[in-house]
């Protein structure tokens, strides 16, 4: 309980287990019950039970449960906090947990990365071509390393926790089906639409994801800053614009706290959203400066962009909120395995 309160704002001891949250949720179904069971596990200190549950990832935080909770126990925020805790749990390096729990550790890491990038620039004499070449290679290898060393092992750990350790005995066929819906959910998050009144939010999020992925492909694999191809250049502007416009909107709603899910923001939420904004914005500026021939005089803007990208790629992607992109999509698949296992169990019982 104490540990969990480091991951979010919790009044979960207030819960008297009426089951309202589970029943009011549009995403719960037979065999997939949350959030009350998670609160129970938390109150009783059943760490293993929580660690092996896939349910927290299935919640899209529409806020219905928190709004209607008769005890103001805030179950929606609990699910958010458990997701943060699970992110730390899956991460074999332990850094995710450290960054969630200690803001100073996170800031120190950010400063170190920034110093590293500036030092690199210093070594290369701030020669624009050399630095930009280095930056491009860095991005490329960064993605490769983060995936192979951090993210893939962490996904395997998640699989171990939620399927093997949870003793989910699903038939083989369901694994193949699970891969199919993994792809759909990773890129569309269609499940959000099952929640009440969440269409606008889903559209915002969908466009942001599309913008982000587009920008990633265009800068890293299509070399936006180096290309002469007009189509790629325009596509870059569009995707960069999408990213910073929608992150800006998200920042406003977090500040105004109009939606239930925006009422409690952790420092890590702010880092995630501000860095995403900065990434889109600085990328946009860099390309703009190239096009109007100002970059050589204002090379600092590229340095800023590279610092932001490196902090993003080295810290926020592997150890932060970014991982929900993977965990959520895999969770949908794992939950389907769980359902298949349940059906199989019922069939054998009958």
């Amino acid at each position, binding site marked *: 309980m104490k540990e969990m309160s480091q991951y979010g704002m919790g009044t979960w001891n207030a819960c008297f287990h009426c089951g309202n949250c589970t029943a009011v949720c549009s995403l719960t*179904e*037979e065999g997939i019950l949350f959030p009350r069971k998670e609160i129970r596990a938390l109150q009783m200190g059943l760490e293993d039970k929580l660690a092996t549950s896939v349910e927290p990832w299935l919640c899209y935080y529409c806020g219905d449960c928190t709004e209607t909770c008769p005890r103001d126990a805030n179950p929606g925020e609990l699910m958010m906090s458990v997701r943060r805790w699970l992110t730390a749990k899956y991460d074999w390096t332990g850094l995710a947990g450290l960054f969630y729990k200690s803001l100073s550790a996170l800031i120190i890491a950010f400063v170190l990365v920034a110093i590293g990038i500036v030092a690199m620039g210093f070594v290369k004499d701030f020669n624009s071509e050399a630095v930009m070449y280095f930056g491009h290679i860095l991005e490329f290898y960064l993605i490769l390393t983060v995936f192979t060393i951090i993210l893939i092992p962490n996904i395997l750990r998640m699989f171990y926790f939620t399927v093997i350790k949870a003793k989910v005995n699903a038939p083989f066929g369901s694994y193949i089906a699970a891969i199919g819906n993994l792809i759909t959910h990773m890129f569309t998050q269609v499940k959000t639409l099952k929640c009440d009144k969440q269409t606008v939010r889903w559209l915002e999020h969908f466009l942001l994801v599309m913008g982000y992925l587009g920008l990633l492909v265009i800068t890293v694999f299509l070399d936006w800053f180096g290309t002469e191809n007009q189509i790629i250049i325009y596509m870059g502007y569009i995707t960069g614009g999408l990213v910073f416009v929608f992150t800006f909107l998200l920042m406003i709603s977090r500040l105004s706290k109009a939606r239930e899910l925006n009422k409690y923001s952790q420092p890590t939420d702010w880092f995630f959203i501000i860095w995403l904004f900065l990434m889109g914005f600085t990328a946009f500026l860099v390309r703009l400066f190239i096009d109007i021939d100002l970059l050589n005089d204002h090379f600092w803007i590229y340095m800023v962009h590279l610092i932001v990208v490196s902090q993003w790629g080295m810290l926020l992607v592997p150890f932060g909120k970014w991982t929900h992109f993977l965990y959520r999509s895999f969770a949908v698949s794992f939950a389907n395995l769980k359902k298949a296992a349940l059906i199989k169990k019922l069939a054998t019982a009958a």
Partner: protein
Amino acid sequence: MTGIIFTKVDNGYSGALDYNELFFYAKGIPGVGPVWYSTDVPLYDKQAMADLIKEQQLKRIVVAGDTPGMVKPFLTGAMVIAGNNPEDVVLASFREYGATDNTKIDRAKGILFCIALGVTFAEAALPEETDVQPDTLVIGGGIAGIQASLEIANGNQKVYLVERTGTLGGHMAMFDKTFPTLDCAACILTPKMVEVGQHPNIEILTYSEVKGVTGEPGNYKVKILNKARRVDLATCIGCGICTEKCPAKAPSEFDNGTTLRKAIYIPFPQAVPNKYLIDADSCTYVLKGKCGVCVKVCPVEGCIDLDAKDQEMEITVGNIIVATGFKPFDAGKIERFGYGKYPQVITSLELERLINAAGPTEGNIHFRSQDKKGNWIFSVESGMPKSFAIIHCVGSRDENYNKYCSRVCCMYSLKLAHLIKEKLEDADVFEYYIDMRAFGKGYEEFYERIENEGIHIVRGRTAKIEERNGRLMVRSEDILNDQLIEQEVDMVVLSIGLEPREDAAELAEMLGISTEEEGWFTEANYNTDPVNTFVGGITIAGVCQGPKDIPDAVAQGSAAAARVLQSIVKGKIKKSIKDMPLEKIEEKAKQFSNSMEGKS
């Protein structure tokens, strides 16, 4: 030396007691040494606490706060280790003596002063006595008011019983059966109503309201508004021809809107007084200036006066009993339950009327349907539901509505489930509860009995009700069976909770008594003085003091009457505790304290 420890509870509402002020006041009380907040002392470490007690040479410890009893066990332990008498840990409970907010800070100081000197507050704050007028006013003609009136009147004392509606009876008259004995509510109540109606010592003032109270304990002048009934009580013979011919209709208050009544009507057949009245809000003559059918058909000349005006009267009484009851929770406030949107979602009070043999459907449960004019009513012409869901805690135990438990809903829900089964043997009945509160004599047995009658009792609060396949889908978690239930039923019954009346605060101000955060009237002492208030001569009885069931309301009615009779027999009444100045309490406490020392 005496030490004082404050246990400060941050209950989060504005106007709470100013503990800083109390803290400094406490330092100045004679014989008091150290004063702490509970956070300043090692409360949970008995050895360290004992060392502190020895170091400060404390012989007594006063624990002060809203609910100081919670920390007492830690301190008694420490006192024993320190070699003192554990009984010298004493509590100064502000809440117990009604010092609930900062307007009563002087009372809190008085409590603190008395306890610190080893004197009980009730002793020191005992007000002086004064002469008392023998007549009594009872406000509210429900079961509590009826009981109190009868007790006093049977003691040969005069009672004025003021009731706002056209008849005595209150909410109990609407109920079909009582729990857990399943007695017919009307069969218990109506004889009492008739007794009140015929009692020579009781003057019934129905269709009347208390408009102002002046004077002082023992001698109150009460202004009463007699609303125009437009039918003369003395000459009306109750033949009912007027009602038969009256063209205007309105929803029946007594039947809770489940059917319509005429503009000239009798609330229900056993009403006391058993006379007709005209509802000005629906009467065609009053609204449009022409009609007068009732006057034409009435066999008694001059009985109906459509132009009658409201009148005021003033009475002098020595005691006032407040028994104003409650208001049912408005189920429409919770949108997710669809009350007002889905016609087959009904309230428990509506079901009571349906089940009642004298109700709109002659005691059978029918669907709600529209009449020719489009009014939603219950009639015997529509079909009967085959499955029911009863949802507990509607508007109760919910931070978004009322935090408190309404106390009666669990039991009346079980009763309703039983009554449904009695009427429709093959019906499926599902009950959704949070916790089953069967708190009284025979209640747990009643719960067991109902459970064995084949009613599906599900632990899990219903979250929402939606329309599905023309039926109602009730979505809940079945916590004990680890399932999610989407149950389709024909009719949903919402077990609504109890709320203070909307004008309770107004009445409290008129009488000078206090209300709690939720709006219930505050008693003088929660444990030992539950019907008195801090104002001399004003007692409270029934649900207006807090949610309770019929037996408890009756008991309070009798208790309040005992207080009144006590003062009348003695001819003297105590003045208000709230008017005792702090200096006087301090002075008296010192006197008592000195005389006690003298003895020992």
